[in-house]
């Protein structure tokens, strides 16, 4: 399997603060990697760099073989649009669009909105019956599933999730993780940023960050199945 993501000696400096320090990481195609760490460990900084929302101060980043660490804002937008599916802790959706329209808007920015395909994506995350509802009519778990459907709609090379279950109850957390398992089973590459050992335990590989440094890489603790 080829590397879909490569970070080589990546550092990020905000004024006097070194948020990320000399991080090197490779993620292979189809792999599920969890990036763990406590608050201030550099998880979100790493997520923003990999998600093409910030540029690293030092080091190089390759995504799907393309060097993205020195691209301009417009090209980074294109990479986000074409190659990355972003899922956030807060359920960021557009309040005045229905569920299906929220999925279609990602298609619209990418190429062409296809309502049928958007409905199928909602079906995959169990929201087919809520397609015409506005976000305020959906529960938190449903909104997060809507974000997952939107992240998947353009068939991204990499699914990047930042604390995807951080605002969910246990039942909804299970639903979301089941969806991730399905995606992984279908060959999707997933990088999950989390501080939750339980969420990390679903991944094939766990990378630990502390004070902006990658301290170790480990196999996840075997999950206890009830």
């Amino acid at each position, binding site marked *: 399997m080829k590397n879909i993501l490569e970070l080589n000696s990546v550092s990020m400096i905000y004024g006097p603060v070194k948020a990320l320090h000399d991080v090197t990481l490779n993620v292979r195609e189809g792999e599920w990697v969890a990036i763990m760490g406590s608050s201030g460990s550099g998880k979100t900084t790493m997520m*923003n760099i990999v*998600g093409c929302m910030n540029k690293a101060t030092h080091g190089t980043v390759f995504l799907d073989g393309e060097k993205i660490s020195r691209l301009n804002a417009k090209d980074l937008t294109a990479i986000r649009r074409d190659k990355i599916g972003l899922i956030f802790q807060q359920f960021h959706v557009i*309040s005045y669009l229905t569920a299906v*329209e929220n999925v279609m808007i*990602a298609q619209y*920015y990418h190429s062409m*909105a296809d309502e049928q395909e958007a409905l199928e994506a909602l079906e995959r995350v169990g929201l087919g019956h809520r397609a015409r509802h506005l976000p305020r009519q959906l529960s938190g778990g449903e909104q997060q599933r809507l974000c997952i459907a939107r992240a998947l709609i353009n068939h991204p090379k990499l699914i990047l999730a930042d604390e995807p279950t951080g605002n969910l109850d246990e039942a909804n957390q299970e639903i979301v993780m089941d969806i991730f398992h399905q995606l992984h089973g279908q060959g999707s590459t997933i990088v999950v940023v989390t501080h939750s050992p339980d969420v990390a335990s679903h991944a094939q590989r766990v990378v630990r960050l502390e004070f902006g440094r990658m301290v170790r890489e480990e196999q996840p603790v075997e999950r206890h199945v009830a």
Partner: protein
Amino acid sequence: MNRKTMYLKIILSSLIRRRSRMMVALLAVAIGATVFLGMGSVYYDIPRQMGREFRSYGANMILAPSGTDAAMRLEDARRAERLVAEAKLVGATPFRYETMYYNMQGLTVVGTDMVAVRKTSPYWRIQGDWPVEADQILLGTDIAENARLYAGTSITLECIPAGGKKFKKEFKVSGIVRSGGPEDSFVLMPLKTLESLMGKPSMVSVVEMSIAASSEELALLAERIQAEVPGVSPRPVKRIMNSEAAVLAKLQVLVYLVTVIVLFLTMICVGTTMMTVVMERRKEIGLKKAIGAENKSVIGEFLGEGMVLAAIGGLLGVGTGYFFAQAVSISVFGRGVSPPLFLVAFTLVASLVVTVLASLLPAARATDVEPSLVLRGE
């Protein structure tokens, strides 16, 4: 679904489902369009409306005998009158000047049409009544004061017409005229009466015309009369024309300034509202950029919302602007006004331009939003 349909769905959903916020901007555009159409209609109608009002200043065209002649044929003056469009001719009054004597004192006696003169000289103030009988006259206020005459008294005038026989005739003073002009020193009698006393019927000294027209139109008319009616020399009254033009220009500048100020205020109101909308929607903008929206898409969506607002607000403004124009015109001029069609189209275009201009800065601000900051809740 094609891109245009999705684009429309995005901007219409945003406007419809967030209508309470956008209502402020919509109201501003509608009010701006209302005032624009209303004041614009008045602006373009002022010359027509004021043209009639100005006629209370008196005649603005004098027809005099050409060359060195002391009199002209009334028929020639009537031909000149017929060159004026009927709708624009407020009135035309012939005047014939002669000299008669009262107690051995020479007086200028003017024969005129006592009905027509009321249209060309509406500013005359009559104490008493207008003459209705052949032996009734009006006395200028100066003569009346000097001779201690008043309405209801009699005056005997005498004269020896050229080539005629001396006469002496008593007239009843029906009224005293005060005009603030030379008429205050004249004796005015019906033209027919003067002709019967002095002979030479159908000859007049001047004809005063009151025409509802601009100075340019009057100048063109004068040229035409000069060319087509020999024996008549037309003279636009420059004093009246110039003062009319000055008043018109000032009124139009006033209306123009009010309109510009209202449009400017509309632009500020729309711009402020749109800027607030951008600030409120920073997370949404950040999200759109995070999922791949380019800056031109973000700008396009904000401008699209602005253009829909402008179209709806403009249409509303055209409807209310019609009634506003009526209200202004009726209260100021006492007559209604119909906004010209081009002004309706121009109002819609102006609404669009003002709203788009007002939305440019907020739209540009929207592109400054960093998706990473917004999505972290900062």
